[in-house]
């Protein structure tokens, strides 16, 4: 499924949002169900920024959360999929565990959670998502984005990419393809205590990578392991505050091209998107089974 794009600058305050917007627009033909971005370095890292998806009565939900957590401010927007988005700035003193407990207690749906990053995503074309979130205005260091052509799961804001699981704030993935040994791998990870929020195969990749990182693997190594262990066609970008990692399946069934010029790194499903940022630079093709990591 889909088109993916990623960009990294060496300096903070770079036009990550604007460039991702342009790249995703040029990949629009690869998916028109939904779109989204995650952008790093666009907010102060002092506090949490959390975006919930709420079906109705968002003010009521806000009240409930405010009662339990130290919320600095909140804001409500209507999403294209008919739900509401409740955006909250929550004190950075709140521990991840406290946040997770509240999310579980009220069965909240989380669209974005992080101290370093902001996810904007919804159903519709890139421009429809831009209208709701204005993500193109966000400046920062790096980010990844996605246009989705849905395959086997629901079409709503929550299922749009970048995909994140609230267990691991600030980590997100954009993914083109399917993992065909999903249930096998999921069982193994569940045995090690991972809790899955959805049946989405993108979530599996996050759990898989985090699992390896926690065991002391470097991101490159974790990605190599993923290529060995995950079956099916895929190309994905995984983003975290420390940078962006990417991988392609062993048979190279899903595309990914990259390019670099004067400290600007870009990756995308197709060269068209790269050309929106770097009109002249040399294109490199990530080989089947190859992985790459960028760190700012």
């Amino acid at each position, binding site marked *: *499924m*889909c*088109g993916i794009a990623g960009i990294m600058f060496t300096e903070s305050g770079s036009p990550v949002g604007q460039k991702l917007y342009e790249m995703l627009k040029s990949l629009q*033909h*690869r*998916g*028109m*169900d939904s779109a989204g971005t995650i952008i790093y370095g666009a907010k102060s890292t002092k506090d949490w920024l959390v975006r919930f998806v709420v079906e109705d009565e968002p003010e009521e939900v806000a009240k409930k959360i405010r009662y339990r957590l130290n919320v600095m401010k909140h804001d409500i927007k209507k999403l294209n999929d008919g739900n509401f988005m409740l955006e909250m700035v929550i004190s950075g003193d709140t521990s991840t565990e406290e946040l997770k407990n509240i999310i579980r207690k009220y069965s909240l749906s989380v669209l974005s959670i992080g101290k370093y990053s902001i996810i904007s995503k919804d159903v519709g074309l890139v421009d429809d998502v831009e209208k709701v979130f204005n993500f193109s205005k966000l400046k920062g260091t790096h980010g990844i984005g996605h246009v989705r*052509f*849905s*395959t*086997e799961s629901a079409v709503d804001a929550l299922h749009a990419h970048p995909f994140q699981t609230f267990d691991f704030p600030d980590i997100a993935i954009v993914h*083109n*393809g*399917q993992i065909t040994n999903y249930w096998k791998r999921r069982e193994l990870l569940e045995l090690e205590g991972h809790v899955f929020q959805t049946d989405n195969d993108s979530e599996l990749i996050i759990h898989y990578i985090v699992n390896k990182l926690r065991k002391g693997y470097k991101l490159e190594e974790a990605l190599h392991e993923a290529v060995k262990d995950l079956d099916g*066609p895929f190309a994905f970008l995984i983003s975290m505050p420390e940078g962006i990692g990417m991988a392609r399946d062993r*048979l*190279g*069934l*899903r*595309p990914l*091209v990259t390019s670099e010029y004067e400290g600007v790194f870009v990756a995308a499903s*197709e*060269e*068209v998107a790269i*050309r929106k940022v770097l009109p002249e630079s040399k*294109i490199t*093709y990530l*080989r*089947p089974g190859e992985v790459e990591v960028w760190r700012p």
Partner: protein
Amino acid sequence: MEAVRIDAQNMTPKELNRELKEKAKRYKKIIILNPNAKHYIAAGLVADVEVEIEGSAGYFLGTMIHGPKITLKGNAGWYVGDNMTMGEIVVKGHAGNGVGQYMYGGTVVVEGDAGDRSAALMKNGIVIVKGDAGLMTGLYMMGGKVIVLGDLNEYAGEMIINGRIYIGGAPKSLGKNAKLEEAKPEEVEEVNKILRKYGLPEKDSFYVIVPKSLRPVYKPPSGTPAMKKLLPKFKTEFTYELCIGCGVCAQVCPEKVIKMVGNKPVAARQADCIGCYACVNYCPTDAVKVFRVAESKTNRANIDASIYNYIRQMASVGHPPVVGMGAENKYFPSLDQLTFIPGQTSRPPIDSYREPCDTEVILGHRFAEKPLKLKAPIMIGAMSFGSVSKEVKIALAKAAGRLGIAANTGEGGMLPEERKYASILIVQYASGRFGVSASYLRSGDAVEIKIGQGAKPGMGGLLLGEKVTEDISKMRGIPIGTDAISPARHLDIVGPEDLKMKIEQLREITDWKVPIIVKYAAGRVADDVKIAAKAGADIIVIDGKPSGTGATPYIVTEHTGYSTMAAVVEAHKALKEIGLRDKVSLVVGGGIKTGADAAKVLALGADAVMIASATLVPIGCTYCGTCHNGRCPYGIATQKPELRRRINVELAAKRIENYLRGFIEEMCMFAQLAGKSKLSNLEKEDLRALTFEASMLTGVKLMGVEKPASELMER
């Protein structure tokens, strides 16, 4: 020479290609400015023209061109020169995956590096890469030449069955069936001559990758003597009082079951009998009878004859044996579990002998300029030339033409007669792309992208070497006697966005005129249907179980699949869910034999039905299943002239026509007795389910309860 410029900056691929086509009529050279990595540039361009592209191109540059010389200054995306038949493409930069895949002729030159799977399923022509080439270069290659001056990545020449891959550097590893040799001096000279023509550096020596075997998959067995079949499934009996000792039965028996002892026929190898009834059919005095021995099983363990003999056969040949026709599997739910209920006084029935019944249907009106207007909601399912004989293809086309229903080329190319006789002809575009070119696609009234077929879901088409005669070899572009094995998936359709691009590519080739059909084997029906609809299909065909085939591994056809009855309901629902039910036409098939089956499928939500194997019965088919090896005793699934002679084409056409006329009348009877004057008005409410199972699968009300079974479960 007069040149003209086109600034592609603000053009869509469709506009650019229309402009190119126009300009190619008047100019000898066209320069495209600002191509901006657009997809499908020059798709299907048939012209003797030079095209210079000042920048990079996206996917499918020069796909299916016939004639032009294209020079690209920048990089090319995936699938440059895909399926081209004549002309030249020179890429100055690098190229992505699938360079020259499915090519039939012409030359593609990449001056930089090429991605993976270059020249995959190439049938003829030349692919040259100055730099390195990626994984699986020459995958399933079937002919032509590949010249790579640099190195090859892993699995070079994977499953190559014909053609040659010349390498200036070295391969990292060879694929299955690939063998590395030193090129002979005369070959080196020939290669250097080609390189000289494109100003590329020459070399003193080359390695060359060639196939080890012509038939790497279905090699004839060697070494192990075959085990006999032992448990008989049929019993052949002779009435000697009637027998005149002519020996016809022994002569026509495809399995050599019958032996003449003097003037007396005897069933010598009874266990080999496949129940084709050729002996019965051709005996001039009705002296032969064949019965099914239903209880034939092993003494203990209750293994039935089919499986027992199958294991012995596999022990002989060492790979899963292949059969033709549908599965024996008895467990798939049958449409017989549904019945029509009549109109009486609550609603009056319509008289089927005297009152009219509308049967016309329009399919594919979503995007196509020329949708299919069928006189009756029937499409004849794809049966390729190769799997069936020319006589069958012509008879089917004639019958379809006279009835105003759709015929289908199948995946082995088009016979000119087929086009001549069929008023509506669907051209199939399958993963092997046999016989595919721009002109092939343009001569169809619709293009059907075959993703899968019900009898062998998740596997590609299969035509065993026994049936690849000279005619077939020419049409498909493969050597005589090789197996034509289509890949399980189109090499360029791996995900939904690829299907969308494929549909756009085919629309570019056919100039947005004809409907694009996507044919699926029923599986994850709802997901797949939604994907095809969103990808822009005009018509979706679902092929459920039980379903016919020309050749399939026995074990696959027995143990895969999804019920036709359940599939139609799910597909209909899926289209409703995404609000495209009125836009996208739904055609469902698999196991439809009579107008009753068809009317039920229409009532469950289809706009038309697809029938394939049942249309062979009027030509004589007895569902014996020996279609795969070319021994069909009725001249249907064979290419042997002596067997084909058994078909009288005109008579066969007439009988198919009669059968289908009756079939249409049957459908109308059900519509009319249910009180409808149009076939398209059949609905679920006209049906009742006889079993709980059928009601659960379809949501049809369970007889006697007047509620769908699912509602009973909820309580």
